[in-house]
């Protein structure tokens, strides 16, 4: 096992793409990496995305809103070329970008009809600038932690955070002192609201970061639990069987039996849907279980193929028992040659074939115990309204065919 975790994971379904997440890119960004991240995600040139944002901004400022939403909800990309030095003179570019965002915001406010009051617009834009700087700085902090470079310059970071904070405070103060504030009870309410919103905006990045870290920790814990479960299962079943096999090296039959039953168990665990062995009320599952019993008891491999499925009823229980008899018989006479069971559920009837590649026999000179098989299998099927046909030829193996009409009334 070169890749122990691989077989446990559900195989990628055909036509099913792995889930792709959009990340904000920290590589080749101007402001928050939204445009670049979106371009990477969609597989288009970043220029088109930027043009789209600008055009959308002209349309009632939708671009600015969209940009802000992406900024908040798309996580920072954890994949980043390592050791890339932080570029100098970047702050100026950023400020320019923020400035254009602010212009966009003014356009948006104008469109909403509340920007005509310069006494309100200017402080609002100031607050937005401050918030943008703060959030941008939070991004950088997150990036630093991914890089695990603790010794990078703290200076510009602190400075920028300070500038952001100051801008928010300034804006808030301006709103409070502005003409919109009429004083009195209403004025007090407005002041409280402004302060609350300011605090929320300033502390937002840290709340968001905390929430993200919490969910990252949670998924790590789930992974750990799954791993522990797999380890426990491997220990209980596979290691146990391997020990038994080492103890039975002299007995090839027993080794084969152990290996076979372990294989079946592991296969069931890997490929069976969640919910354990369930489905034992279905014909297919009971036939497989019966074949497994016979395999274990007689040390013969039985290949089971079931086409269609239906719930078990009294008649089909008889079919299963007859099939088990036939398999036991095949296992006894086939002398280690493979046995196959094929069952097909059709609307009108259920057909089961049990075939072995043993020596076969001449139906005219039936040995006594084979006659017994005939009685038990054929008799049982007849009693329940079905029939069984045994065909065999010396050297060609034996095939038992079981047919049972289905109950047409839905039960």
């Amino acid at each position: 096992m070169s890749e122990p975790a691989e077989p446990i994971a559900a195989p990628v379904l055909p036509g099913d793409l792995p889930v792709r997440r959009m990340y904000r890119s920290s590589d080749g960004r101007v402001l928050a990496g939204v445009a670049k991240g979106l371009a990477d995600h969609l597989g288009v040139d970043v220029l088109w995305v930027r043009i789209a944002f600008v055009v959308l901004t002209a349309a009632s400022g939708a671009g600015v809103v969209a940009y802000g939403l992406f900024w908040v909800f798309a996580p920072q990309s954890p994949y980043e070329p390592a050791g890339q030095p932080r570029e100098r003179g970047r702050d100026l570019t950023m400020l320019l970008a923020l400035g254009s965002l602010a212009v966009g915001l003014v356009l948006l406010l104008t469109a909403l009809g509340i920007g005509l009051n310069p006494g309100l617009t200017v402080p609002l834009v100031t607050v937005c600038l401050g918030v943008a700087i703060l959030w941008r700085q939070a991004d950088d902090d997150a990036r630093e932690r991914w890089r695990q470079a603790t010794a990078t310059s703290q200076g510009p970071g602190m400075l920028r955070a300070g500038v952001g904070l100051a801008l928010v405070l300034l804006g808030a103060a301006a709103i409070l002192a502005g003409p919109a504030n009429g004083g009195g009870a209403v004025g007090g309410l407005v002041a409280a609201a402004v302060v609350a919103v300011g605090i929320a905006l300033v502390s937002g990045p840290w709340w968001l970061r905390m929430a993200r870290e919490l969910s990252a920790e949670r998924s790590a814990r789930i992974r750990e639990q799954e791993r522990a479960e797999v380890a426990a299962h491997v220990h209980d079943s596979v290691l146990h069987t391997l020990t038994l096999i080492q103890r039975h090296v002299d007995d090839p039959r027993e080794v084969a039996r152990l290996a076979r039953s372990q294989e079946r168990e592991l296969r069931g665990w890997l490929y069976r849907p969640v919910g354990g062995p369930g489905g034992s009320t279905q014909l297919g599952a009971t036939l497989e279980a019966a074949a497994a019993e016979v395999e274990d008891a007689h040390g013969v491999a039985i290949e089971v193929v079931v086409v269609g499925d239906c719930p078990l009823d009294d008649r089909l229980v008889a079919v299963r028992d007859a099939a088990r008899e036939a398999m036991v018989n095949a296992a006894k006479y086939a002398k280690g040659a493979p046995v196959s069971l094929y069952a097909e559920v059709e609307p009108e009837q259920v057909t089961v074939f049990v075939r072995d590649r043993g020596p076969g026999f001449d139906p005219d000179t039936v040995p006594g115990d084979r006659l017994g098989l005939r009685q038990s299998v054929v008799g049982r099927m007849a009693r329940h309204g079905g029939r069984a046909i045994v065909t065999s030829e010396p050297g060609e193996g034996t095939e038992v065919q079981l047919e049972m009409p289905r109950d047409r009334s839905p039960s």
Partner: protein
Amino acid sequence: MTDHTAVRVVLVDDHRMFRSGVRAELGDAVEVVGEAEDADQAITVIRATRPDVVLLDVHLPGGGGRAVLAALVAELPDVRFLALSVSDAPEDVISVIRGGARGYVTKSITGPELAGAVRRVADGDAVFSPRLAGFVLDAFAATTDVATVDEDLDRLSQREREVLRLIARGYTYKEVGKALFISVKTVETHVSAVLRKLQLSNRHELTRWATSRRLV
């Protein structure tokens, strides 16, 4: 039949023990010209050696057998792929067949049977294990009574159904021929036709069916 010249084979499996086991079991029946243990290596080796048949594991590091099929089926039409897997999951089986493999056998197959399957694939025929035959019957059964199915590709003929049923019952091609009073060649023709339908049928039901078998 190309009995006189040994079939050239590349083995692709991520377990070295399994590769040497297969090599030993195939013995002189084929000539193993290369081995690979992941998808990228397989693509390189197959390009370099141009074998007749590739024995391809479904689960491989680097994208699985499907990645190898996707890279090479169109590029090297003379190279034939026979999928070999321990998996019984229907979606695995269906996906490699639809990816272009000429057959699917499980790893429990015996040496002589595998050698026969390799030769059959080298001759351009399809190889169906009982389980694959069962899957196909199951997948195509669901739509036989739907009146809207008008594409021939989406339906199995009565004869094809009979052939598949016998294969699912564990019959060899020879025994199928004997039971239906047709030649082995005719059996091979039917199976190849089914393979073609399996690969070309553009119904999404196939995939959905394979997925649903897992989730039921």
